[in-house]
């Protein structure tokens, strides 16, 4: 009886709010609640991984071993990388997708809401398992976030098995999240929302989701092979048993290179939303942005061995991967040119999201330049596994991925909470982060070129000065994130009321909804002209 009624009345019946108490969060199938859970989880992991980074930088402030022993240092570099990649950056993007994708395509929720709940709730268990290894006998994983065999198999601490299961769980969560996003975008678009009308954030996430589905099983495969080597006597990666340690690297980087694009494509999407809003001008080259993103994604499957120029590949292999890698600069360049062309003859204002987005463009491009240098195989022999690489990937990940997440958070917070965040505090957070990031990571270029290898707990005296500078910057950057946390919390608690459109130049379905967004939105599909 009830069912017939609600079917005839349509969606008006669904105006009920969230459940009461903790159950709301455990059992929720609401995309906004799950988005919120993902974002808080990611913030927590960002702060955890950040503390590990600060421990690393504190030890490296001066030559000599002061605070930690080398074995613990190795656990910190490993955990810092794993937590930031799988715990901070990826869940943050999934959280933003959960919140924004249904609202941007005019859908009432994600396509598979129960699976959505599950894909989030796996994560706290996966990361508890992984973090618990730090307290196990022999310590946690100490072989770097790239866990090259045989250091991660024959020579690994016993806790590696827990690490493998944690990675399996993260993979399951990511695959389910990706399936959900694809299903939502392909099936739940409002009538009239054609593919080439999708906001770029939705487009970049659609492509990212396909990358995730393609490569997370590869990661699961490689850790399973490790598990077999460790416990079941196989020799996939053990040369003494006829295996091949280099095979590990090929499989790992076949996952790993698309993985780095998984961490940057949604960032491109966020920035492509923010720059037009604050330039009050339509995004330049929408179609070419879509094509560029797709070509970056396709090329990402053909460049994995540029992480392995020093393993002794044959000349033809080196050349192929060098050329393919250089080619990625073309679509990436197109994106940067499009952003600059969007700003050109716009009418710009510089609120916090725009400041983060602009510094994304500049600093990500600097990371791109060092990436281009690294692509040149003969020169890469001098850069490989030095701090130059550390500088490169932190430039694309911190002021790249993480700045875009912060930009997105400030951009959409008023929509989520119904309050404006504190703009001066936001700007202070931006400038401290901007200065901190550059003081931390710019000197690392010099350290690497001058010959400092990465992942060392102690270093020769000629590297002392720039290390002290980098450590100082790291503490500036790290502590300034407390402003971010404070700003978010105070924005949730109150503040100036946000209008529905929030920003003068904002366009798109999400800005037609009230601020704060009601618990259920687009129960009836919007009309798209």
């Amino acid at each position, binding site marked *: 009886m009830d069912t017939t009624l609600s079917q005839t009345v349509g969606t008006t019946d669904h105006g009920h709010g969230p459940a009461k108490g903790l159950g709301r969060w455990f059992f929720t199938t609401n995309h906004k609640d799950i988005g919120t859970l993902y974002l808080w989880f990611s913030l927590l992991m960002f702060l955890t991984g950040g503390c590990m980074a600060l421990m690393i930088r504190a030890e490296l402030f*001066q030559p*000599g071993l002061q605070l930690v*022993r*080398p074995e613990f240092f*190795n656990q910190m570099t490993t955990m810092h990388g794993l937590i930031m990649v799988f715990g901070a950056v990826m869940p943050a993007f999934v959280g933003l997708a959960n919140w924004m994708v249904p609202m941007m395509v005019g859908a009432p929720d994600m396509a598979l809401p129960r699976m959505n709940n599950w894909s989030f709730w796996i994560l706290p268990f996966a990361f508890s398992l992984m973090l618990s290894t730090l307290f*196990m006998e*022999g310590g946690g994983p*100490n072989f770097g976030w790239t866990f090259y065999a*045989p*250091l991660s198999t024959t*020579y690994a*601490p016993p806790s590696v098995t827990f690490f493998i299961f944690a990675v399996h769980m993260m993979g399951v969560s990511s695959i389910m999240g990706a399936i959900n996003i694809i299903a939502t975008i392909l099936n739940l678009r409002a009538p009239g929302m054609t593919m080439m009308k999708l906001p770029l954030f939705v487009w970049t996430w659609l492509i990212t989701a396909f990358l995730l589905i393609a490569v997370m099983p590869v990661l699961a495969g490689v850790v399973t092979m490790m598990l077999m080597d460790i416990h079941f006597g196989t020799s996939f990666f053990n*040369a003494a048993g006829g295996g*091949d340690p*280099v095979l590990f690297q090929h499989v790992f980087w076949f996952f790993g290179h698309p993985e780095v694009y998984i961490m940057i494509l949604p960032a491109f999407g966020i920035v492509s939303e923010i720059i037009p809003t604050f330039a009050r*001008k339509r995004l*330049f*080259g929408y179609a070419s942005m879509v094509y560029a993103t797709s070509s970056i994604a396709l090329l990402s499957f053909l460049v994995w061995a540029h992480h392995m120029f020093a393993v002794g590949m044959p000349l033809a292999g080196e050349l192929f991967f*060098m050329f393919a890698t*250089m080619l990625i600069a073309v679509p990436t*360049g197109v994106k940067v*040119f499009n952003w*600059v*062309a969007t*700003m*050109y*003859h*716009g*009418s*710009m*204002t510089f609120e916090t999201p725009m400041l983060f987005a602009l510094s994304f463009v*500049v600093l990500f*491009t600097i990371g791109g*330049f*060092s990436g*281009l*240098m690294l692509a*040149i195989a*003969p*020169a890469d022999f*001098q850069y*490989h*596994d030095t701090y130059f690489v550390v500088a490169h990937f932190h430039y694309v990940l911190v002021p790249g991925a993480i700045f875009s997440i912060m930009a997105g958070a400030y951009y959409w917070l008023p929509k989520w909470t119904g309050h404006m965040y504190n703009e001066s505090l936001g700007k202070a957070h931006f400038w401290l982060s901007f200065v901190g990031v550059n003081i931390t990571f710019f*000197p690392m*270029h*010099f350290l690497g*070129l001058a*010959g400092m290898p*990465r*992942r*060392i707990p*102690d270093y*020769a*005296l*000629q590297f*002392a*000065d720039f290390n*002290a*500078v980098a450590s*100082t910057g790291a503490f500036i950057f790290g502590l300034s994130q407390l402003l971010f946390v404070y700003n978010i919390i105070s924005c949730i608690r109150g503040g100036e009321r946000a209008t529905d459109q929030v920003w003068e130049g904002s366009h798109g379905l999400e800005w037609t909804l009230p601020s704060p967004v009601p618990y259920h939105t687009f129960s009836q599909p919007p009309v798209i002209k």
Partner: protein
Amino acid sequence: MIKRVWLLPWIGSLVSLPAAAAWDVNITPGATAISREVYDLHMTIFWICVAIGVVVFGVMFWSIIHHRKSRGAEARNFHENTAVEILWTLIPFVILIAMAIPATATLIKMYDNTDADIDIQVTGYQWKWRYQYLGQDIDFFSSLTTPNEQIDNEAPKGENYLLEVDHPLVLPVGKKIRFLFTANDVIHSWWVPDLAVKKDAIPGFINESWAIPEESGIYRGQCTELCGRGHGFMPIVVEVKPQAEFEQWLADTREATVAQAASATEEWSLEQLIEHGEQVYNTTCAACHQATGQGIPGAFPALAGSPVALGDIDAHINIVLHGKAGTAMQAFGAQLNAVDLAAVITYERNAWGNDTGDSVSPQRITELQQ
């Protein structure tokens, strides 16, 4: 490149460091024709990136300054231009081809491993290097000599802190040296920036690379692949000498090997063994088992009071000679000579309260090795 002079006084007030402090910002042009070519390639690419950066950021900042709302800028309504978009796809493509050509040429040269004058096998061990001059009867290990007191800040750090070894790799000037890289346990990577050689040393694989050092001198490098707790403590020192001096060194080294073999048949007193054994222990064993013999709980077992060091002598010798499968304990029988082995085992049985009074003779080691 950029000199960050403005940072100097600020940092100076933050930390006071030894005089060896330096602000090196670039890779070395190095000591070989290839390393100079790589340096030139690096600088070319760097300046191309700078040029692109100046143009892109120039337009961007010009827009930020002039096209801001506070200056009354009104947004224009253009959002695509096929000609411009094709142009800025093609121009980068052409620039990339221009970069790829010299890079390919250099890479082809670097891959020409033929016609070497000397072949040296380089083997990575946790955490030292082994150099074998193939066909020359020369085979030795090269380990870090920086004392633990310096690492633990209990003594002032020396000039070549963490970049000094007991036995450097010695090479002649002007000869083509071919390196054959492999590893005994995990993956290591052998890097000497001045030779522009960086190659992974992988267990079960042999990798090749080569260099023709053009000037005498001492060149330092480090392991560049994470290989465990001692990764930061296995430097590489290369001493390049004129041909005559190199040959003298070859002769001296061979002679020393013979003398060492002879000493294995001599009588050694307990005190002599313990004294020599302490040195061997500190360079070979202390990285894992620690100078205190306490090991690292959960990772490396303690030797002080351990059943192995206090129990059956032959069982103790057996573990040291052949290692322990499935653990990080290596087979030192192939790495150390009989005197070193006898001395270090004797030391382990008499240090840190392990007062067994046992003495192991080099002859006993030789016997068990046969």
